[in-house]
């Protein structure tokens, strides 16, 4: 069923490993801790959602994993190596779709192929043939095939976010990092995109680390949900989510799903009030 590229050979069983990684900013002595010593292992092909109160260091973990930030203490291994971008192919998407306004959607989605090895060496030769077909196939998966030639400002927020997901996936990353990609969308568009995201994941099975504020989103998409405490954050709960796939929106009203949601919610509220008391 799955395309041959879904299981690259020699892929390590552990895609991401944070061991006692901590981050603090500022000069020594006066530094502010952003992340307490945190350990987290993500197996290849897992879909992990990271939830927690705002400012707790979720994005810090994501940036550590992407190799955009070095831990102050501890280690971060991605694909068994310290430099993330050289170990694994990484795709990223943020809440802000950041499409380049001077390029069509097709060219925007194609951008990683212009940069990532080994695609970049063939970019000139293949951009109008093979790469073009690839972009169109992926756009068709998210229902945007008719908009390949449009410019970003001609698309709605939900469509732009679909294109953003495509851009994060076009180079077939084995690790996908998502920082609240659906945060700015209305409820219905968001639920629609959960479905899109799920089918993209089921088709390609990359390892995913999703940061979100939306507990329903975490439960719907993830195979594992980690809850973080308030700043400086650490992981206080780690639970598997075993609902069968493909999951449906209808399923989010089942009692089991609601119970999970409720439990996560209580954990976060506890984490928040803890700091509120400590801060007082």
């Amino acid at each position, binding site marked *: 069923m799955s395309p041959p590229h879904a299981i690259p050979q020699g892929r390590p069983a552990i895609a991401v490993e944070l061991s006692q990684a901590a981050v603090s900013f500022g000069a020594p002595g006066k530094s502010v801790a952003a992340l307490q010593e945190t350990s987290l292992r993500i197996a290849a092909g897992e879909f992990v959602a990271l939830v927690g109160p705002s400012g707790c260091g979720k994005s810090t973990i994501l940036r550590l994993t992407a190799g955009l930030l070095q831990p102050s203490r501890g280690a971060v291994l991605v694909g068994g190596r310290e430099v993330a971008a050289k170990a694994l192919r*990484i795709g990223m998407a943020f809440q802000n779709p950041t499409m380049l306004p001077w390029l069509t959607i097709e060219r925007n989605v194609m951008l990683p192929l212009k940069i990532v090895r080994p695609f970049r060496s063939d970019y000139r030769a293949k951009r109008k043939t093979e790469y073009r077909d690839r972009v169109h196939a992926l756009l068709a998966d998210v229902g945007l095939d008719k908009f390949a030639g449009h410019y970003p400002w001609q698309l709605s927020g939900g469509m732009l976010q679909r294109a953003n997901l495509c851009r994060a996936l076009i180079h077939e990353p084995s690790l996908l990092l998502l920082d609240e990609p659906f945060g700015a969308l209305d409820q219905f568009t968001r639920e629609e995109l959960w479905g899109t995201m799920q089918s993209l994941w089921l088709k390609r099975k990359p390892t995913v680390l999703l940061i979100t504020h939306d507990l329903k989103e975490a439960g719907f998409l993830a195979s594992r949900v980690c809850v973080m405490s308030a700043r400086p954050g650490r992981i206080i709960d780690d639970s598997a989510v075993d609902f069968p796939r493909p999951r449906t929106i209808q399923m989010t009203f089942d009692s089991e799903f609601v119970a999970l949601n409720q439990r996560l919610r209580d954990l976060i509220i506890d984490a928040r009030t803890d700091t509120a008391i400590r801060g007082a």
Partner: protein
Amino acid sequence: MSYELRRRLWAGILILGFFATWEILCLALQVSDLVLPRPSQVFATLFDRLGILWPHVLQTLWTTMIGFVLGVTVGVVIGAAIGVSRTAYDTVYPLLIGFSSIPKVAVVPIFVLWFGSGATPAILTALAMCFFPIVVNIATGLATTEPELEDVLKSLGASKLDILWNVGLPRTMPFFFASLKIAVTFAFVGSVLSETVASNKGIGNVMMTASSNFDVPLVFAGLFLLAGLGILLYVAFSLVEARVTGWATRRQGFASA
């Protein structure tokens, strides 16, 4: 009559009206052409002496254009360096602000001292006048790249050069062309400035000679020529701008379509 046509017609009438008012006021108040010649006199002088003026026009035009091209090159390089590197920003920017605050008239004698009179100081003054707005605009354009997009690209393993080439520079294009239009008029000011001080050719020189001969209509003919050339180049760059950076303004066109 369409709105567009009516707008243009009005603009044309008002511009003509400006010159007509000037003409009428001069006649009514009996202003001597030694003080302020009438537009009709200026245009008459312009046509009468176009044969003599023409080589000077070409001289000013080519020194300006070379100075402008060099200025753009220097401006883009410095602007890109400032936009990309923190160190360059901290060191070069203060120096540049200092340099741009110096009145360029004060620099011309130094250029003359170094290179003698003639075309070289004119080119250099044009360069010195016009590169600063380009530096500022390129640097600003680069600084406004979204941090999220930079993160996406860095996680793909993009080098600084990749980011500059694919995102930074295209993003600065609207800023760049906006600054080109300003820079080209500045370049004119620079080369004419230098010609008035140290040259025996060029419109600036013609105007200096004419004013010492009290040939005021000829001085004004020079001014009109400069203004005309400035407008011409401004329009030329506007047309290029519309072609290259249409994406930045297309939003408006789309809304009204």
